[in-house]
């Protein structure tokens, strides 16, 4: 302990360190070639011929004058190339002339100063001596002594009750911060429950994205595809959140072209099928439809879904098929949903559970 020793008794902490540091498995060759030392200094053109140095000076000063002109030019362009409303070309000119003059002003300063440094400034190499990064033995001993002394004077090591209770307090005091972040999101809702439902419900009309016009079954011709949102989405309070879950793709296939699994016989209407547009991988819109093959492609990570087989994954990182929206028509011949999706749409999440087996 520190109080056993007076300041004078302290010795370097680790005498081994005074010896040369371990080189590990490095091979230190006794027979190594010796460093020949710095090569002789080579003079530059300007060192030999003062006239050339003068010419360099004039050249550099011209650069600086150009810089002054360019800076003024930038101010002039600010006014000379104004932005004219509804005229994108004016924006381009404004950006171009302003930017080019600023760039010129900066580059001429930079090139001039660097050239000055390289061509005209004294270029004899200097040598600094390195010292080991570690403090000297005396410094380190003194540091240890200071800590020991502080320990002794404060009683940090001796008064264990004081110290340990303080450590406890230090552990406890940041805890409230964690709870303070709870209200980053509303407290009323459970996210997992929210993710299970969309705006779709029995009788909700399928409407066009983005104008919200309802779609007649007769409008959906063979081979066409519609981007669909639920009726009333545009008036919804949480439009984007609802759309991020409820976006749907609508296609018509020949009834002989696709397979229907048991329980889904009445989910399509006369070959018109609706699938969630939100990728089951990480949620990008699966917006690309190949009419010939009836494949859907997600442009973000190239997952491919086969509409002929209830949107099963045929390629890419996604695992689950796109959920199918059960649809039918109402009395006026407009397409409507039979119900909400029967499973959560979009990317997987921890609480999603095993919907496929339910």
């Amino acid at each position: 302990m520190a109080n056993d020793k007076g300041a004078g008794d302290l010795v370097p902490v680790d005498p081994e360190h005074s010896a040369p540091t371990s080189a590990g498995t490095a091979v230190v060759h006794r027979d190594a070639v010796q460093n020949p030392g710095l090569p002789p200094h080579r003079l530059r053109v300007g060192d030999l011929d003062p006239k050339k140095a003068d010419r360099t000076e004039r050249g550099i000063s011209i650069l600086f004058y150009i810089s002054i002109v360019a800076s003024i030019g930038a101010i002039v362009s600010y006014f000379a190339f104004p932005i004219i409303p509804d005229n994108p070309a004016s924006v381009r000119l404004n950006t171009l002339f302003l930017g080019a003059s600023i760039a010129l002003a900066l580059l001429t300063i930079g090139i001039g100063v660097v050239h000055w440094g390289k061509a005209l400034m004294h270029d004899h190499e200097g040598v600094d001596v390195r010292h080991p990064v570690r403090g000297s033995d005396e410094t380190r001993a003194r540091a240890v002594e200071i800590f020991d002394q502080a320990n002794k004077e404060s009683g940090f090591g001796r008064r264990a009750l004081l110290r340990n209770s303080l450590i406890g307090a230090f552990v406890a005091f940041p805890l409230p911060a964690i709870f303070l972040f709870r209200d980053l999101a509303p407290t009323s809702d459970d996210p997992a429950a929210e993710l299970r439902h969309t705006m779709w419900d029995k009788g909700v009309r399928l409407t066009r994205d983005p104008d919200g016009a309802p779609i007649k079954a007769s409008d959906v011709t063979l081979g066409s595809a519609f981007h669909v949102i639920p009726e009333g989405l545009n008036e919804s309070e949480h439009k984007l959140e609802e759309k991020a879950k409820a976006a749907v793709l609508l296609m018509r296939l020949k009834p002989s072209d696709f397979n229907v699994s048991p329980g889904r016989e009445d989910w399509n209407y006369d070959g018109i099928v609706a699938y969630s547009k939100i990728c089951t991988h990480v949620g990008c819109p699966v917006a690309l439809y190949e009419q010939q093959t009836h494949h859907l492609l997600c442009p973000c990570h190239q997952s491919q879904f086969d509409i002929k087989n209830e949107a099963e994954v045929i390629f890419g990182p996604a695992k689950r098929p796109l959920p199918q929206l059960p649809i039918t028509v109402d009395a006026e011949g407009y397409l409507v949903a039979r119900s909400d999706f029967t499973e959560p749409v979009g990317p997987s999440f921890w609480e999603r559970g095993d919907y496929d087996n339910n």
Partner: protein
Amino acid sequence: MTTTDTRTAPAADRAKSGGVTGALSNYIDERTSISVAVKEFGRKIFPDHWSFMLGEVALYSFVVILLSGSFLTFFFQASMAEVEYSGSYVPLKGLEMSAAMASALDISFDIRGGLLMRQVHHWAALLFIASIGLHMLRIYFTGAFRKPRELNWVIGFVLFILAMAEGFTGYSLPDDLLSGNGLRIIDGMVKGIPVVGTWISYLLFGGEFPGTQIIGRLYTLHILLLPAIIVALIALHLVFVVVHKHTQYPGPGKTNENVIGYPVLPVYAAKAGGFFFIVFGVIAFMAAFFTINPIWNYGPYDPSPVSAGTQPDWYIGFADGALRLVPPHLEFVLWDHTFSWNIILPIAVLGLFIVTVMVYPFIEAWVTGDKREHHLLDRPRNAATRTAIGAAGVSFYAVLWAAASSDIIATHFKLAMEHVIHVLQFLLIVGPFIAFYVTKRICLALQKKDREIALHGYESGRIVRLPGGEFIEVHQQLDEYERWKLVSYNDYQPLMIRPGVDGKISSLQRVRASVSRWFFEDRIEPVSQTELDHSHGHGHAAVAGSPDQYQSVESGSGSAGGAPHAH
């Protein structure tokens, strides 16, 4: 040139004689003791090499980012409140969008120099991250991370991660279609994290995606929290550069105990200061001439549409690529919980990759057991295994990066998308091994070539016919300065396992020995003085073309057996 008089005169008197500058200096020094700093650092020597500028580019582009970013904050509104766009860009007029998007469009189309500043900011950010990446590669391949600089490597690594975070938060701010899809992907990835994912996403977005909070929150991160940490870490990074003094490349006169170069005042002040203006000028030039992130083409964010060829800014590409390359069907449900390995696996692999990058200095230090300070850089060839590991890492990253453009590669080269993915999946695993092997062989071959040149000189192209009729090419010897570069490097041998004090060999020691063998078994020893003397012992000042020279060629090839590891 000071006279005895002025030297003994009090500082104040001298200051008076110096006029206004002197008086001002005196005023400041008496209140700040700035003269101590000038004395300490004014003539500090910095070594010279073009590759040392990469870190400078990063620093300067960060300054440009701060300047241009401050300008943008005066006009940008980090709000997701819905507004009807009424600015000058006709195609989007009347469209509903967030205030963030509308203000970003106003900056682009209604504020003079606004588009220029946006593009300066974006180009500077790209340059910032690119130069950090190149700077890291320079540090890695020259071994500048070795003791005493391991901690500074870690700081630099953290800065690299923070720079990417700044980039991502920044390009999400305009709330355009492209960046919104990027956030959508982040949301999907976060949701895939077991146990806490759903809640993290919920808290991050302040409710369901996309919510009305995320832009404001990213803005706080982007302009306050992250920059503050970055500024602090850059300061620390530079303090360490001063404490350690800069590394230097091996060369004549340069040792581990000295720094050879030019003083801060005036040469480095001029070169580095001037270089700031060059970097700024180049960024301004790019911003003036090349469009970046044309948000007006993408339109406001909407969860439904997306354009083909969607991909993030290039530095996020490796993460996006990892998501694309993951094998299919990696998800299962267990005890009613979803395990999305198609998300978890890429995150884990990326995490492992970047953590390996971070701890590499400590791994190498453990393998070599070398506790010395290293201020002389390695030429990459002279650390063959390290260089090969680096090449493997680069190719791993490069394949992930290429994968982020898999669809563009497919459409551009008229290939099937599936084939591109499969080839990249294959390359992701095999590529690093090929890169490792090829790089290591190239390094060893270059070392052999160095050895050959150091011993026997280089082929001069002069063919001489000997009196006996034999033709021979004259080899020109290097001068001692050129040769020094080829013969001075660190040489390690594989670790020999020895029992510890208890007479046992620990398993850790075995692992270390086998890693050490893998690192150093192919080593090529540097040329020794004896070999050198032997190879041209007939006087190395021999005039090229003299009979001595020819003899040295022959005896040289015979003497290479002196270094058994080389052959």
